């Protein structure tokens, strides 16, 4: 005579655990930041001779002291007008206004930009390496060591 056992699961929420945890999410965000920074640096280098061009940089939003800059809402006379919202990223592009200008109003420091570019490259490569490491670990675990 077979005896049936009923397996009772207390909390179904446990089954929805995350496969890709916080670190991988952080690494993704870091890659986005680094890619945007590379683009900004490229733009600065491209505009090294443009008159009245002010160099730009990418910073994390929580480092910005001027909180009003982020929360500026456009006054809309009709609710159906498009709002001026900024993206939901944690970083944004800012303009450096407080550095010295050359005679044509351009404040791009080419040496600083080259140095930033090299730094950013290394940062990007290291993020990709860490990401690969995490994925490989996950893969090893999933395969059960085989």
């Amino acid at each position, binding site marked *: 005579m077979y005896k049936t056992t009923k397996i009772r699961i207390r909390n179904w929420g446990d089954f929805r655990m995350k496969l890709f945890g916080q670190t991988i999410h952080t690494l993704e965000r870091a890659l986005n930041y680094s890619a945007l920074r590379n683009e900004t640096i490229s733009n600065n*280098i491209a505009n090294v*001779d*443009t008159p009245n061009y002010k160099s730009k940089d990418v910073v994390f939003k929580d480092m910005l002291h001027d909180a009003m800059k982020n929360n500026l809402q456009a006054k809309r006379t009709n609710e159906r007008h498009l709002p001026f919202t900024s993206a939901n990223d944690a970083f944004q592009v800012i303009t450096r206004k407080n550095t010295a200008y050359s005679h044509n109003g351009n404040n791009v420091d080419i040496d600083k930009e080259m140095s930033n570019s090299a730094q950013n490259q290394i940062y990007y490569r290291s993020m990709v390496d860490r990401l690969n490491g995490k994925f490989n670990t996950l893969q090893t675990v999933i395969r059960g060591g085989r």
Partner: protein
Amino acid sequence: MSIFHGFNINASALTAQRLRMDVTSANIANAHTTRATINEDGTVEPYRRRMVVLQSNGNDFKNYLQRARFGTQQGNNGVRATRIIEDQEPFKPVYDPAHPDADETGYVYYPNVDPLKEMVDMVSATRSYEANVTALNASKDMLLKALEIGR
């Protein structure tokens, strides 16, 4: 805006710097051209020094609207040579009555090209060109590294 957006930014700068270089070469080549333009009344004008006006891309209405609507960082679009204008500095008069282009007072007007200034511009254009090539290589390196995710 594709994955090669960074390349396009630097490529635009390479084009602009090359144009600057070409204009500088033209200026140097025509540094002694006394007969560049012939007016309707028969008088001749010497060559006027040319300059390139550079402007950063992404400052038109379409980009501003897109930035406001989506908050995307559309401000990075490289550089563009908008105009080639002529330098309005006065010509350099040289007293030479025997010259065929001398006017009544015996002065020949030479172009307002200063070779030293052109050399400085040339070096500046070359340096900017090289810097942009380095930046392009940096973008390429990053893309190649991104391809290695998961290898």
